């Protein structure tokens, strides 16, 4: 069977050739930066002139810096709010749209998706405006119905949940589309037969929808986690880490260390830590949750 072997050989060569363009871009723009970032983090990086090698000094400095631990904690608090919010809203909207059975559902869908089309600076500025304690419409209507509005962006307790909500408003539209596609793929017969068995919508949700959607929800959760742990724009624009350092997340801490203090070595160390945290957690979750089939 020599011809088959030759075939496989040719396939391997062509296969690799086909893969090559993507592989080059991938190496250059996804992998090389991580390695290069790690290299920078081992130096007292001075783009002009000498950059002495300092080993893990940048990391030990980081670990003895309270602001790093504070930022780490904030990062997880933010993620703990943002990820469930984004997923829950996305799923809820997808379910609502599925059960709408209206001819104009596209309009509703477009409206719910619209915020995703804004860019981060617009989202941040718009919401800072809406939440302003004096001229913001949200505090105004909270006052109008007789409550006293919290200091959304100026209270250590509320600031991260508030930013997480804004992120959910902005991003859940995309999750909605993905989940909706998933829901559409569930055969209607499943619902019909369970309805014959007398199952109500709530039981159907738990016995059919959720189990079938579980892999894609978990997959979305991991992607949202990656993005959530690296959130920068919303925080930079809405609070710049305040009040105090209550909303200073790791990505913002890294940004400031690089762009305001020009300490590129230290910033690269923060970046690499963030990468390591995100990467390890995601891979662990993929393994632990048994999502390998989902990925391959």
């Amino acid at each position, binding site marked *: 069977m020599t011809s088959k072997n030759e075939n496989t050989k040719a396939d391997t060569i062509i296969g690799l050739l086909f893969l090559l363009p993507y592989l080059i871009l991938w190496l250059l723009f996804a992998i090389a930066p991580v390695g290069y970032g790690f290299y920078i983090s081992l130096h*007292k990086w001075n*783009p*002009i002139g000498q950059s002495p090698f300092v080993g893990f000094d940048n990391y030990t400095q980081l670990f003895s810096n309270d602001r790093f631990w504070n930022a780490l904690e904030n990062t997880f608090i933010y993620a703990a709010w943002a990820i469930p919010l984004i997923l829950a809203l996305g799923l809820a909207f997808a379910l609502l749209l599925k059960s709408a059975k209206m001819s104009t559902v596209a309009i509703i869908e477009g409206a719910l998706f619209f915020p995703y089309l804004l860019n981060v600076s617009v989202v941040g500025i718009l919401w800072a405006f809406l939440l*302003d*304690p*004096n*001229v913001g419409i949200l505090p105004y209507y909270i006052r109008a119905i007789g409550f006293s509005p919290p*200091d959304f*962006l*100026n*209270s*250590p307790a509320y600031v991260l949940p508030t930013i997480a909500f804004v992120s959910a408003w902005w991003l859940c539209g995309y999750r909605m589309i993905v989940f909706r596609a998933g829901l559409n793929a569930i055969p209607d017969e499943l619902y019909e037969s369970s309805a014959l068995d007398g199952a109500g919508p709530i039981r159907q949700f738990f016995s059919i929808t959720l189990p079938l959607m579980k892999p894609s929800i978990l997959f979305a959760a991991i992607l949202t986690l990656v993005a959530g742990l690296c959130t920068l724009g919303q925080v930079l624009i809405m609070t*710049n*880490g*305040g*009040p*105090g*350092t209550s909303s*200073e997340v790791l990505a913002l801490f890294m940004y*400031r260390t*690089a*762009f*305001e*203090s*020009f300490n590129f070595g230290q910033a690269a160390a923060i970046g690499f830590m963030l990468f390591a945290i995100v990467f390890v957690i995601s891979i662990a979750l993929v393994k632990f949750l048994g999502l390998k089939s989902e990925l391959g």
Partner: protein
Amino acid sequence: MERRDFMKAMACLGLAPLAGTLGSVPASAAETKMWFNTLFHGGDADAMETIVKNIHASNPDLNIDLTQGAWTEYYAQLYNSVVAESAPQIGIVDDFRYESVAEVLYDVQDTPAGNILELMGAKTDDFAQWDISLVGGKALGIPLDQNGFGIYYNKDIFRKAGLDPEKFPQTREEFESACEAIKKIGKLPYHPALSGEPRYIRRAWLALLWSLNEDYIKGDKAAFNTDKGRQSLQYLVDMVQKQGWNRPGTNGTNQFLSGELGMLQNGTWFYLTVEKAKLDYGCSMPPKFFDRQVSWGGYHLIVLPKQPDSDETVAKLQATAKFLKAFLPYYSLWGEMGGAVPLFKAAINDPKLKETQTWKKTLGMFSQAAASGLMQAEPRHPKITDVDLAVEPHVQEAYNGTITVAEALNRAEADVNKVLAGA
């Protein structure tokens, strides 16, 4: 959609950006162009654009690519662009960031093209405060303007509160009773910190600290954790925690533009915004809160970032000198449109500038304050930005009432000393 149509569409879409990208690669354009990168936004940026357009109109050979509107990334961008050997020929820096980027700037009196100042046909004496451009005895920039804070006040609110709209309070007692009068008519009396961001809270505190003749940093140590330091910060905190002149977490600029705020500390640049809002307003230096009348101030300098060694660089620097020479007559327009005090003597003394609306409303007052030394800049130190960043969270927490003033200054002092001791 047919596959063929789809692919055709993709091919067309692909060609458009390719053509566009190739056409607009700036590297090829840079040979004939100068790049002027500023950190201005809004009105300032409009002013600079007008000036550059005018200069280009009378000097068609000066082809200037003006880039404006960067954020906090501006300085890192400036720094990195020198590293990347693609730096702008002309930049603008704030005095408090000046020393941190010093190593990427030319000495304007000693560039590969010679003494730029001489080529401009100017003397150090032509500038109002030439000394601010010196770092270690070398002039790394050319003074552009002095900017800083004053107190903008709403004249309608003053009238309703029974205050004289033409006479702003000059002493602390007068100021405090004005605040009480404004509070009585149900308006907000005073916001000390513009939009309420931490850096503006810190700057408001610094002016009070300086009013008590206390230092911010001395040598390589924090100097503010003293009785006077606590007294000044306590006074600022009391404004929003005890006196009820305002609340923490609010945006004074929004309050003022809504016509609900009596007095707002804001910068020279605020003139343009407040004019657009069509408010009846006045502007004054803050009263003498403690021992000395003073407000936070800063400078803008025109700088020449270092370029790769080449003949082209010399040619570009010569063109830069020509541009800057043509810029000199526009210092007064910069003051008129940007609101800051131009640091070119001929501009400050320009009778035409004194007839402008800007001069009458704000610039005249700011010029006088600048001339009498009432606007104080932050101390010069290569790490002043890191010092400021270390102080800000603590000062903001004190302002918000989440920690005490003493605690805030203790923490700030520790962090600042750590920053200053660091390698």
